[in-house]
C-alpha cells in the first residue's frame, strides 16, 4: 500500500489498530477468569432442618449447615427459564435461619404475571426445602416476588 501523505499514514495506522487482536489475549482472559473464580463470594451458613422439623439430625445432636451462596446459586438456576429470569435475589437470614426470600424477576411479555408470581413462590420453596429441609415456620408467605421488568421474548437473552 502506497502512503502518499501523512493523513494516509495515520488513516492506515488507525485501520491497523482497530483490527488488532493481541496475541496474548487468550492468556490474559484465562488468568482473569482464574482470579474471578478464586474470588470467594460472601456467604453465611444456614441451618438445615431434619425431617422432624428440628435442627438435630440424630441422637448425638448432629447439625447440618448449607452456605447461603449455594442456596442462592440453586435459586438462580431454578428461576432462569424461558418465561422469567431473576434480576435480584435476597435471602433474609436471622441467627443462621432463612426466614424469607425476596425475588425480583424479569418476565416475558404475554406471561400471566400473577400466575407467574405464584409459580415462583412454589419454585423457591421447593429449592429451599430441597437444600435445607422443611422449616415448619417458612411458607410461601415468606417469599416476596416483584416483577421489575417485562421484555419481549426470552428474558434470559434480553
Amino acid at each position, binding site marked *: *500500500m502506497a*502512503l502518499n501523505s*501523512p*493523513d494516509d*499514514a*495515520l488513516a*492506515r*495506522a*488507525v485501520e*491497523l*489498530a*482497530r483490527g*488488532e*487482536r*493481541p*496475541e*496474548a*489475549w487468550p*492468556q*490474559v*482472559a484465562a*488468568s*482473569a*477468569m482464574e*482470579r*474471578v*473464580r478464586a*474470588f470467594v*463470594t460472601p456467604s453465611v451458613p444456614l441451618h438445615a432442618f431434619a425431617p422432624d422439623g428440628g435442627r438435630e439430625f440424630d441422637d448425638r445432636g448432629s447439625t447440618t449447615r448449607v452456605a447461603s*451462596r449455594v442456596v*442462592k*446459586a440453586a435459586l*438462580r438456576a*431454578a428461576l*432462569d*427459564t*424461558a*418465561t*422469567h*429470569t*431473576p*434480576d*435480584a*435475589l435476597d435471602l433474609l437470614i436471622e441467627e443462621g435461619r432463612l426466614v424469607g426470600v425476596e425475588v425480583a424477576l*424479569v418476565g416475558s411479555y404475554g*406471561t*400471566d404475571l400473577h*400466575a*407467574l408470581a405464584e*409459580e415462583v413462590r412454589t*419454585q423457591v420453596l421447593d429449592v429451599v426445602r430441597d437444600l435445607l429441609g422443611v422449616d415448619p415456620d417458612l411458607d410461601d408467605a415468606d417469599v416476596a416476588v416483584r416483577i421489575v421488568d417485562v421484555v419481549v421474548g*426470552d*428474558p*434470559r*437473552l*434480553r
Partner: protein
Amino acid sequence: MSATQVGVDADARTDTALVRAARLGDQEAFRVIVERHGPAMYRYALRMVGSGAESDAAEVTQEALVSAWKDIGSFQGRSELRTWLIRLVHRRAVDLARRRRPVPIDDQVMAAIARPAPDDPLQSVLDAELLAALQAALDTLPPLQRAAWLLREVEQMSYEEIATALGVPLDSARGHLQRGRRTLAERMARWR
C-alpha cells in the same frame, strides 16, 4: 403456566442479560462479558501504558476485570457496559502511568502487537513499522489526549461515551480529542 427450563446460548445474550446473570454470581455469563469486551479493554490498555509494557497492560486489564466482577452490582446501566469496563481499565492505566517512568520502545513487543500478514511479508513489515510509529507518537501525548484519541479513533466510541469513560465533562473530552488529533497528525507527518 409452563416455565420449561431450556438451555440458552450465553453468547446470544445481550449485555443487559449478561450483567443481570453475573450480578447473581453466574460466572459463565461473566466469561461471555470477558470474551465480548475484554479484547478492546486489553487493546486499550496496551496502547495506554505504552511501548514495552505488555505485562503491565495484561495486569491492568486483569485487575479491571476482577474489579468488574466484584463490583458488577454497582453497574446501573446508565452507560453502556463497554464504557463502564473501559473506565475501569482507564483508571488503572492512568495510575500505572503516573507511577512509572517512560521506557524506550521495544521493537520485539511492537512486532508482536502487529500481527504479520503471511501473504505479503513486505506489507507486514510496513504495517509493523507504522504501528510502532503510531505508538511512539501516542507515547508523547498526555494521558487524557491519548485516551480520548484511542477511544474515538480505535474503539469508535461517541463523545458522550468517551466523557463517561474518562470521567470528564463532554467539552473537556472534545478538547482532549482535538488536541490529541492535532499533535498526532504533526508527529505522524514525519512518517512516509
